[in-house]
């Protein structure tokens, strides 16, 4: 085996086997918890998978949830590639929703194909704007991005609560949400789009923004792995000192990457608000920013992996809500546990299985005649 092929072998093992082993570990621990609360883990797993993939409706919901996680996963991954940990995807998505929402509320009777580009721009710009100050502070003043983005999550939450309670609330209503967007601003659903070409699928919130998310993933891949600027991002992430010697300005990369990261997270409302809720509601990201961390870690920051991992987490959410119907003692919080465990095993304890895997590979290779 040549040196190169060998390193490719390592890479594939780490990209595929390791996440699978980590996921398995997370599922085993979750299974123990399910066991503790007196339910059968096998039945739970079967119900979960059945709920997520067992029907057209299930698949539609799974992909709908996955769309949110692709956006936030890409957001976390892009920042991670440049060596930064963006915990602020939650707040950036929230503020992005303000941008997209305002466009939809102001759209009047404009046709969808005019509203969509404006909404995408507004969502991205608002999301990026919310990452701007943490980015600037990190690039110019050396403030820790983790802390500032956490603080900005809380500030976003306070700001949006204030806006929804005092400014944007529909007059005469009690609940803090805006009036409904006009139907001309709603994302066409999958059943709508496929129905036009004669394919009938179950009516679910799955909508056009799933394709936008896939396009964003392709765009991120092309940017990070196929452009000069992407090279600068990767070098900065691997070794800021080397980047400096190579004539790359780490502070400039930091700055631009965080804006991009914020813009990607800001696109979540294209799916959640324009695709399903059709209004701005309180706390609509509902933790998707944190799921993005799990998605990015599991995918090792690769866009293709992110799409796959997002589908997996979408399946957990969808399957989890189905599960709660059949098992009264298990609710959607169980899915949060699995998300947390995946983050722990993929991100914190990644050395736990990496070294044994390497040793195992060494044995297998050693047994083979050279």
């Amino acid at each position, binding site marked *: 085996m040549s040196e190169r092929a060998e390193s490719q072998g390592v890479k594939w093992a780490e990209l595929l086997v390791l996440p699978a082993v980590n996921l398995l570990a997370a599922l085993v621990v979750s299974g123990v918890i399910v066991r503790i*609360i007196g339910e059968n883990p096998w039945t739970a797993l079967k119900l979960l998978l059945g709920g997520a993939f067992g029907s057209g409706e299930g698949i539609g919901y799974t992909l709908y949830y996955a769309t949110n996680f692709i956006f936030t996963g890409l957001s976390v991954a892009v920042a991670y590639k440049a060596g930064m940990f963006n915990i602020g995807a939650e707040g950036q998505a929230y503020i992005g929703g303000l941008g997209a929402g305002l466009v939809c509320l102001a759209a009047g009777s404009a046709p969808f194909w005019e509203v969509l580009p404006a909404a995408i721009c507004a969502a991205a710009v608002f999301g990026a704007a919310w990452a701007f100050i943490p980015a600037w502070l990190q690039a110019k003043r050396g403030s820790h991005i983790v802390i500032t983005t956490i603080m900005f999550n809380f500030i976003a939450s306070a700001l949006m609560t204030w806006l929804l309670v005092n400014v944007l609330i529909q007059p005469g209503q009690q609940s803090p949400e805006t009036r409904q967007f006009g139907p001309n601003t709603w994302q066409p659903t999958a059943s709508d789009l496929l129905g036009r070409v004669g394919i009938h699928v179950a009516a679910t919130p799955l909508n056009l923004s799933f394709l936008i998310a896939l396009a964003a993933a392709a765009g991120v891949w092309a940017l990070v792995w196929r452009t000069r600027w992407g090279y600068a991002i990767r070098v900065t992430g691997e070794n800021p000192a080397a980047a400096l010697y190579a004539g790359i300005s780490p502070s400039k990369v930091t700055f631009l990457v965080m804006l991009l990261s914020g813009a990607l997270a800001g696109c979540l409302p294209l799916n959640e608000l324009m695709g399903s809720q059709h209004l701005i509601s309180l706390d609509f990201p509902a933790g998707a920013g944190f799921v993005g961390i799990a998605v990015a870690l599991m995918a090792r920051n690769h866009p293709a992996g992110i799409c796959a991992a997002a589908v997996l987490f979408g399946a957990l959410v969808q399957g989890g809500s189905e599960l709660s119907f059949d098992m009264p003692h298990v*609710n959607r919080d169980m899915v949060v*546990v699995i998300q947390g465990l995946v*983050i*722990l095993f993929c*991100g*914190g304890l990644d050395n736990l299985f990496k070294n044994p895997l390497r040793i195992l590979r060494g044995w297998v290779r050693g047994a083979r005649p050279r």
Partner: protein
Amino acid sequence: MEYYTLLVLLIAATLREATPLVLAALAGLFSERSGVIALGLEGMMLGAAFAAAAVSAVSGSAWLGLGAGVAVAMILALVLAFTCVTQRGNQVVAAIAVNIIVAGVAPTLALAWFNQGGQTPPLAERAQRFTAIVWPWARQARSNPFPGLIYAELLSGHSLIVYIAAALVPVSAWVLYRTRFGLRLRAVGENPQAVDTAGVSVARLRYQAILISGALCGVAGTFLSISASSGFVRDMTAGKGYLALAALIFGKWRPYPTMGACLLFAFADALAALLQGVSLPLVGVIPVQFIIALPYVLTVLLLGGFVGKSIPPRAIGVPYAKGE
């Protein structure tokens, strides 16, 4: 006169609000001064809040609740220590993971065990909670504005944990600055190589620091569920762990300034509750959300170096590997 009473009551509310913050911030202090990022405060507190309320509800004893709260928080601390120190994993990721896991596990277990929608049963009996301790003659002293009212409201009338928190600030300062353990702890957060060279185990020190951090978070969480309120509800820490971290940064990683920051943040919180919907002269109604966001805005400004400079322990967030 009326404003005076209001002010005294406001300060009393501040002391109660500040208690979990002070405890969690001290927890963060030990962890971060040893070089381990303290993002897991939120999760450890929430875990303790659930354990304390659950055990207190079942056993009927607040003290057993406290024991369970501290034990669970220390077990979570052990998970963090194993991940961050032994496995040399990413400290931010590990802490976020623990926070998310606890946010899911606590309501799951609560639902399964008590069947009340992810809460624990309300703690009705006196022995199940740490209630306010009324000092001698506090009731009679109340009618006298000074010093009677201050005695009755500020010194008397808090739960045991409030006094414990107040006492732990000087104790922590003493441990950190006046003991050999404290010197080593601070050293390991600045320059672990030097500590290692001196023949002291970096891993052991960090394990100790994280476990102390867990114990303190355990007390903080216990306070939330069986002293400040009567039972566990979903997400009851509501970001207090992160707020404590902000206070720690605001206090520049020193015990007394950190306590000051906690009091400031708690005062803002108490004030927000008081000013809800009240129209003030000149400024009108101050939105509660602005006051809530204030600590976070101040911390960001501080981190940006706009109001003073806050420099973290040098080795923070970096796993230590021998011989590197």
